[in-house]
């Protein structure tokens, strides 16, 4: 089911939760709404579901405007962060709830409902747990029950609000894999909200990054990760080093030395910021023409990753470098050593006071509605 949102605006009191949001989600797509607290991602999801109503703008499912269709008639599967399972019902009764509350004419027979519930329990790998109560299940199992319950009504769209937010790291990773497979099997158009960039990048076909009630960038994982549209997007998708530099004739200069060259650029010469991820910095020969001279200040070994703090020579700036622990460069990174760093992948943004603001430095997020209730 294709979903299209046009010109959505939503205001909570004086707080602008959503501002002119336009988005089209193709049928069968698995899409992530990614953003920090208060960026409007959950509000957008709830507007698609019909749990909230936009002040202006239209939501349509397959070209049909949903303005007059209430939540219970939208045929959406909504999965809550805290599962919202009916705790006085068995797992099977939870799963079959959507079928058994149908009006008599459209309701399947009891054996048929039972058969469908068992089928769904098989799909979510919970065969044999049908007679248990939610409190007898683990967090991961509960979330799978919630998914099975949502899938029982054969939803046109599956909406998940931070589905793995309340689970521990290991279970979260397993469920991600599993949800990817489930989406592959069922093909239901799926939208999920997360503030975990790793989760969004690993799971989604397409990522929509939201900030302050607007879409900062929407694109495939590669598009947003390798070609971030703004410093904010770059910063939000992972750890970031920011190196102030000067652009002159295609060369990026730090302290008079050329660090890297831009093949073709639309940027005008002048002060810029280079954004580079810790994993995209590597040691290079000291005699290489381009690169950044640094002195190694500190080396932390953190299991799979070696994290190095390197001070830029002649500048008051520390960079973080990350290497896989078995990388052949690791031996070169010894405390006190001077070496030259090469920038494998980076983005350059003109230095504007406002544009250099990173997410970490944005003023405390404004919490709204349910997020405020949780906090």
């Amino acid at each position, binding site marked *: 089911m294709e979903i299209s949102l046009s010109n959505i605006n939503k205001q909570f009191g004086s707080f602008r939760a959503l501002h002119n949001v336009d988005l089209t989600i193709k049928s069968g797509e698995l899409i992530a709404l990614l953003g920090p607290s208060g960026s409007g991602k959950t509000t957008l999801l709830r507007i698609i*579901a019909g*749990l909230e109503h936009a002040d202006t703008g239209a939501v349509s499912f397959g070209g049909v405007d949903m303005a007059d269709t*209430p*939540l*219970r*008639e*939208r*045929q*959406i*599967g*909504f999965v*809550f962060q*805290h*599962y*919202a*399972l*009916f*705790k*006085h*019902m068995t797992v099977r009764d939870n799963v079959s*709830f*959507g079928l058994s*509350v*149908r009006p008599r004419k459209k309701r399947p027979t009891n054996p048929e409902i039972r058969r469908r519930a068992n089928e769904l329990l098989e799909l979510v790998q919970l065969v044999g747990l049908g007679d248990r109560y*939610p*409190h007898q299940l683990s967090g991961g199992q*509960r979330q799978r029950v*919630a998914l099975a*319950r*949502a899938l*029982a*009504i054969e939803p046109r769209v599956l909406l998940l609000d931070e589905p793995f937010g309340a689970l521990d790291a290991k279970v979260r990773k397993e469920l991600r894999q599993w949800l990817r497979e489930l989406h592959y099997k069922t093909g239901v158009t799926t939208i999920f909200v997360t503030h975990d960039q790793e989760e969004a990048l690993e799971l989604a076909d397409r990522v929509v990054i939201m900030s302050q009630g607007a879409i900062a960038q929407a694109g495939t994982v590669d598009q947003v990760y390798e070609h971030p549209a703004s410093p904010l997007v770059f910063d939000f998708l992972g750890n970031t080093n920011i190196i102030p530099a000067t652009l002159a004739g295609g060369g990026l200069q730090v302290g008079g030395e050329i660090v890297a060259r831009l093949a073709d650029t639309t940027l005008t010469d002048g002060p810029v910021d280079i954004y580079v991820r810790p994993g995209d910095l590597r040691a290079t020969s000291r005699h290489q023409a381009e690169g950044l001279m640094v002195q190694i200040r500190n080396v932390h070994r953190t299991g799979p990753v070696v994290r190095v703090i390197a001070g830029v020579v002649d500048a008051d700036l520390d960079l973080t470098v990350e290497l896989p622990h078995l990388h052949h460069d690791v031996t070169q990174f010894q405390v006190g050593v001077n070496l030259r760093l090469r920038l494998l992948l980076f983005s350059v943004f003109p230095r504007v006071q406002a544009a250099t603001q990173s997410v970490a430095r944005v003023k405390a997020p404004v919490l709204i509605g349910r997020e405020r*209730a949780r906090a």
Partner: protein
Amino acid sequence: MSTVNPAVIARGALGSATTEAPWVRYMLVALALTFLAAFLLLPLVSVFTEALRNGLGTYVEALTDADALAAIKLTLIASAIAVPANLVFGVAAAWAITKFEFRGKTFLTTLIDLPFSVSPVVAGLVYVLMFGASGWARPLLDTTNIQIIFAVPGIVLATIFVTFPFVARELIPLMQEQGTDDEQAALSLGANGWQTFWHVTLPNVRWALLYGVLLCNARAMGEFGAVSVVSGHIRGKTNTMPLHVEILYNEYNFAAAFAVASLLAGLALLTLGLKSLLETRYGSELARRQKH
């Protein structure tokens, strides 16, 4: 060998950091128990001993007296109307307050607490002022020939007023804690409002509801002040059990007064028993901690 680990000393002498020395603990427990015995247990025991002082015959006689039976019947009628009414009102009020946003919500919440903060005597007087001989609703009552004050309807009204907060007060914090996720989930699955309420909201609060009803019932049967004002104390007609106890007592008929009082006390004990049973069995739900 003379060095001793200070941590071991501390643990040996005091148990854990939050525990006091034994003599302090025993003294506190003894103090609490003495107080409870003197102010609660002793009076309760004396009610039963006084009731049975002149033998079982007098006790049964006092309870089977026509006026006593009428008082018991009236008390049962009043609570049989007041409790279900407050069950419905309380659930409706709690539902409105916790699941919806509307103007004047804080006012409504305050209003629910009003019967707790107003003296029951004042509550009774309000009804007298409204429906009494010179009350402003008098002309209406005269034309329809309905008697409220010094009659059963007044007693029922006063009882409803005084016991109104019990059910709502018990439900509101729990329902606030539970939020609206479950209801939204039910709606998204296609349930209508009534199905959502019946299959999701109500089961989520059932034990708290039962608890609220128990408390409401205990108060409805034991209410004295408000009922006393509107009742008129007509023997055999508008006397409830607490009023009957007072009349017998004022007539120096102690054995009979205590006999009827023992019934009320027995009811209180039964309520207390049921309440603790609920608490031990469904304590986690009543303590508003249950979450999933």
